[in-house]
């Protein structure tokens, strides 16, 4: 088990490094300079600015400088959005609200999705089952901005139950609509997957044997079905976490939430490369960390992995 975790962690660290390298190269090998208003600048001025930011050095050298600084918490400075503002400050002030919405949506989505999926699998071919199927098809098919639009139009605009746009004076209430919009995809996917997985577990040979022991249905479901279903559901949580990230960009824009996603969009639109690089990297690290977490979790709950080659 220890070996398994260490190996996973080592692979993740290497992947993070490779990805940072790829991202850095991609953004630095592109033509032109990163400065917005370069038409107005003379070649000398551009040269001066390049020297100031250290852009005159060879790419590889710049990469190691960047890596070194980054390990000390320095992601460079913004070129365009807020000139010379340290990116670490910009990012950390916005990380909180993004994580809050993401976590709320993730937890809410997983819980509701699990409930729907379990109820549907236990009551197949009933209203509950059909309801779950409809919810999961809609949730999987419709992009989060559609839900954002519907929620803000009805709950925000027509009935004024929640603020239409993010209001920093009431941060908690402001996250309600973004959280719901963001959780729809998670609800749908978790419900859908749980239902299929649970049905296949219930049809498995080992359930036939467990039933043949004459255990009451509730005991069968609690100690055999749910346990095995959960193990497989964890595997789909990774792609869902990724989707929470994509979704958070959309939802933050839709509700004007001052989070990481909206900063990313601003940086993309104003070509602020350092910010784009930093946030891309943070997203990648979160993604890899999530995968590592799931791998470890999987190792803990699945005896086939936990006890493999000890």
């Amino acid at each position, binding site marked *: 088990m220890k070996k398994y975790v260490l190996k996973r962690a080592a692979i993740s660290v290497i992947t993070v490094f490779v990805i940072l390298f790829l991202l850095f190269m991609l953004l630095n090998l592109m033509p032109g300079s990163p400065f917005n208003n370069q038409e107005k600048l003379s070649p000398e001025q551009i040269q001066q600015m390049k020297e100031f930011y250290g852009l005159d050095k060879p790419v590889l050298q710049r990469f190691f400088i960047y890596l070194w600084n980054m390990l000390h918490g320095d992601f460079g400075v913004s070129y365009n959005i807020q000139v010379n503002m340290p990116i670490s400050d910009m990012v950390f002030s916005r990380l909180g609200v993004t994580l809050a919405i993401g976590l709320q949506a993730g937890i809410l989505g997983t819980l509701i999705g699990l409930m729907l999926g379990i109820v549907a699998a236990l009551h197949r071919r009933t209203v509950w089952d059909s309801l779950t199927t409809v919810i999961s098809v809609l949730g999987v098919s419709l992009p989060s901005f559609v839900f954002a639009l519907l929620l803000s139009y009805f709950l925000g605009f027509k009935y004024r139950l929640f603020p239409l746009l993010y209001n920093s004076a009431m941060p908690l209430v402001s996250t309600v609509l973004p959280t719901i919009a963001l959780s729809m995809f998670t609800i749908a996917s978790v419900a859908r997957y749980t239902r299929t997985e649970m049905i296949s577990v219930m049809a*498995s*040979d*080992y*359930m*036939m*044997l*467990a*039933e*043949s*022991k*004459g*255990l*009451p*249905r509730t*005991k069968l479901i609690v*100690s*055999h079905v749910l*346990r*095995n279903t959960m*193990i497989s559901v964890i595997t789909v949580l990774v792609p869902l976490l990724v989707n929470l990230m994509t979704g958070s960009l959309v939802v933050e824009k839709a509700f004007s939430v001052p989070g990481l996603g909206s900063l990313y969009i601003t940086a993309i639109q104003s070509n602020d490369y350092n910010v784009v690089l930093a946030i891309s990297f943070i997203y990648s690290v979160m993604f890899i960390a999530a995968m590592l977490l799931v791998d470890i979790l999987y190792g803990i*709950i*699945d*005896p*086939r992995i936990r*006890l493999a080659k000890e």
Partner: protein
Amino acid sequence: MSERKQILKIRDLSVSFHTANGLVRAVRGLNMDVYKGETVAIVGESGSGKSVTVKEVMGIHTPNEVIEGGSIAFTYDSGSGEKTVDLLTISPHFMQNQLKGKHIAMVFQDPMTSLDPTMTIGKQLMEGMMLHLHLSRKEAAGRAVELLQMVGISDPEKRLKNYPHQLSGGMRQRVVIAIALSCDPDLLICDEPTTALDVTIQARILQLIMDLQKKFNISVIFITHNLGVVAKVADYVNVMYAGKIIETGRTEDVFFDPRHPYTWGLLSSMPDLSGNKEDRLYTIQGNPPNLLNEIKGDAFAPRNPYALEIDFEEEPPMFKINSHHQAATWLLDPRSPKVEMPDQLRRRIEIMKREDASNGGN
């Protein structure tokens, strides 16, 4: 021989399945009897309805299944005297909580998939005992160790903490047998328990089942398509074809005096070490009938080299050969021409008889 006590009596069982292509009539009017302490084998090709039959006994139903008729009378000791119930009419709840595991137990085909991969062997063994025998965790664990020892698993205390994936196929099947026997059932159903195992292990598992059956005097229904297995374990044999039993009798009746041409075919197609190498292995021509279609006459007729005209029109009844040996073929009707079993088979049976006699007729 003392009075035989009947514990299972299946009459006119008919089961069909709804499929995309129509209604499949998997079991068509099946009769079968099981007596206390005896082993009854059901032999037949895949798709002949063997598994469906025992799943009805075990109360394992699928949503697309229709029970068209019949009864399954099961007699057991309910603790407050003997009781007989019809397994087809009792509530699923009664089946699940009162009979399964406690009075009827089952050993499944594939030990690789029939244990819960996420639960220890010990827990899976103890679950049933704690529920039915009202044992404490400690008592159950003690009995689990005994059971594992009984089915021939070494170091049982350690094995209790193992997960299924840490055991070999043969070991897992022993565990499955231990689970089935854990609550002293009256009836044990074995659905091809050795098919998925290596040949060397097959023999040991068979021996284990036979030993345990004698030791606890339980009744066993043994499903297989392997006649070698039948000869070894069974007291009675039911030969099944296209959802019906077409020949039934004591093992020596069916093996030494087979009457149905299908049984002839089965016995002839059995590979045989002592047999003459020049003999070509016999195969039964054609395929089993498609049970989607209405079957007219004898289902085996199209493949039967000895088919009579009447076989294509009228279904043969069961003809009695002796007090327990019966076969459903028109060849036994006095009006039919005299047809003898093929010579090759006759020679084979002679050899088998001699071997049997030299083994002390056992």
